């Protein structure tokens, strides 16, 4: 697992999702992003799709792909490292 990318993702997610009370170390990279984990909602999911395209050049073909990719930060980092174009 790319620890630098995981850390980078934590920082980006805190910024774009306005998780102002959280620090990167508060986020468990293996915990679910939605539901019982960070408790993100559907708008946050859309914002993560924008983040993937804007920062890593990854354009998801359909939003349902996000359900698998956004299961945790670790899974997201793994997907990004394999598919990034920038």
């Amino acid at each position, binding site marked *: 697992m790319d620890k630098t990318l995981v850390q980078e993702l934590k920082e980006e997610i805190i910024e*774009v*999702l*306005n*998780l*102002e*009370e959280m620090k990167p170390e508060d986020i468990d990279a293996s915990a679910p992003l939605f539901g019982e984990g960070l*408790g993100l909602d559907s*708008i*946050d999911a*859309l*914002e993560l799709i*924008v983040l993937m*395209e*804007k920062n890593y050049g990854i354009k998801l073909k359909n939003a349902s792909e996000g359900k698998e990719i956004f299961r945790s930060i670790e899974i997201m980092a793994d997907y990004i490292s394999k598919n990034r174009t920038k």
Partner: protein
Amino acid sequence: MKNDELYIQRAIRITSTDVFINGTPFAINKEENSTWLTCIYRTLGVQYPKFFKMDNLCKAGFLATELIFKGTDIRPEEEKRDWSILLFNKSSSLDNDQLYQETINDPNNYFPSPSVFVYTLSNIVTGEMAIRNKIMGETCSYITEKFDADVLLENASIGLSQEKGIHHLLIGWVEYLNDHCDVLLFLVDRKSDGALTSWNKTNIEKYFFIPLQPHDEL
């Protein structure tokens, strides 16, 4: 219903520098690197992470409601079926609309932000206030040219519709644009016992034109 049958129970004023509860200054702990609205939020000790996702207009309305209930026995988590919200402002959601525009200005860096887009309507503030406090009655927001006590005065009796079983009304002016915060929120109902004062033009203006406090810069 006549306006002389209505009473102000609580009055909250928030400007860009001051907060008043029922006309009395309320001290805010100012923190460097935090916005004025975040300082108010932290001073109140509220735990509501969604606050940080809101646009400034919603934050201002949210905080005014928190201040309305501060020191009362009204709890946010209690259902309020006989409550309504009626707000007015001048700039609609323009403060946030400008932020959204920034995300779509550049064709070469075109990434419309969903989380900013959802706040590009001025009535979202009434929704955030209603969700937080389980207010089940009608919520409305109107855009007017300027603060006008007469408009608030006339519309309170409509908002407090006895036909619809509404007994409590949050009514006021919630305006935010370019770091300029201008909020006046009242809790109005028909109970004279323990009321702050009567619902009339003189009293509405008294709480709006309240003298601001001298400030030292940070």
